[in-house]
């Protein structure tokens, strides 16, 4: 199988280049990550992140044949050759397929991704009805792989100001949580020309989310919550 991989080592390369590899999948190779690990066995200079190899850690997000995805969830069957692998677009490249996610996680931190409860804590657990818990489905599953945000043109245009689909999905995850007591503050923070309203409903985020989530729907829900509050 032929692969064409983006290579860049800032310590030795003048600029990025594409390197071709040919590797024969073995019987138990199913996913693209299996091939990358196989390449790594004979070219240990190739750098990429990976950890759980089953779509939970979100480490191996990359651009695969022009579309963001997780190497560990991408089946090698049906991939057009040469399989072109590039780092996630829109983020600074540290080396090869590894990007600097500082900005991405700064946006995540900015939305305060934890429950804020102003009332005194109850003696026992905070109750949540099954219906209230159901509202978190499709939100809490996000693994922060950054496939959505780095495939969003609005994020490319304003990466430092627009929070991006991943952070906004997480923001709505806490707005929708019945146990959270800071909805007003969260909405105040998001009601900004850049943070939320740079989203143009292009919906690339929903298109590429490897977990099948819909950040664009979450963004729409935030807009509706803002509207409901205004009215």
């Amino acid at each position, binding site marked *: 199988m032929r692969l064409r991989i983006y290579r860049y080592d800032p310590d030795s390369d003048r600029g990025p280049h594409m390197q071709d590899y040919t590797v024969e999948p073995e019987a138990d190779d199913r996913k693209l990550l299996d091939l990358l690990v196989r390449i790594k066995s004979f070219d240990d200079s190739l750098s990429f992140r990976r950890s759980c190899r089953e779509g939970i850690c979100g480490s191996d997000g990359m651009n695969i044949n022009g579309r963001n995805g997780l190497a560990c969830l991408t089946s090698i069957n049906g991939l057009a050759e040469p399989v072109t692998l590039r780092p996630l677009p829109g983020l600074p490249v540290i080396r090869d397929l590894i990007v600097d996610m500082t900005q991405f996680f700064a946006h995540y931190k900015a939305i305060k991704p934890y429950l804020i409860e102003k009332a005194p804590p109850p003696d026992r657990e905070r109750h949540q009805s099954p219906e209230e818990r159901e509202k978190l489905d499709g939100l809490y599953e996000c693994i922060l792989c950054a496939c959505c945000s780095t495939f969003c043109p609005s994020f490319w*245009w304003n990466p430092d100001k627009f929070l991006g689909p991943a952070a906004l999905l997480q923001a709505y995850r806490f707005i929708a949580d019945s146990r959270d007591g800071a909805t007003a503050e969260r909405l105040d923070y998001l*009601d*900004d*020309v850049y943070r*939320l*309203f*740079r989203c*143009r409903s292009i919906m690339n985020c929903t298109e590429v989310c490897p977990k099948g989530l819909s950040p664009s729907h979450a963004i729409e829900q935030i807009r509706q919550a*803002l*509207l409901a509050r205004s009215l």
Partner: protein
Amino acid sequence: MRVFSGQVPWLLQRLTALFLIAALLVICVVIFLGLLPDYSSWKAFAKSGHGATIIFVSYLAICTHAWIGARDVLLDYVKPISLRLTLLVAISLLLTATAIRLLLILGAQLPV
């Protein structure tokens, strides 16, 4: 609702779009039913108080919608603040000038 929020222009853009879609549909119906069949009847409509008001309000909706759209493009693509501000002011002046010109044309017919 905060005056300088992201929501106000977002909402205005959608409300003006809905208004313009409705206005466009009305124009289509008027043309399809032949209610204003010729130039002189359209001219008479524009000279009536209601007609002049509808035309002017529609144009204000177009100006608002266009300015927010242009602002969105400039926020995305034009990074130097001074250049962005210059372009925003230039677009505002252009739209205001055309609205004033329309006001002068329709002025006598407007109810206020």
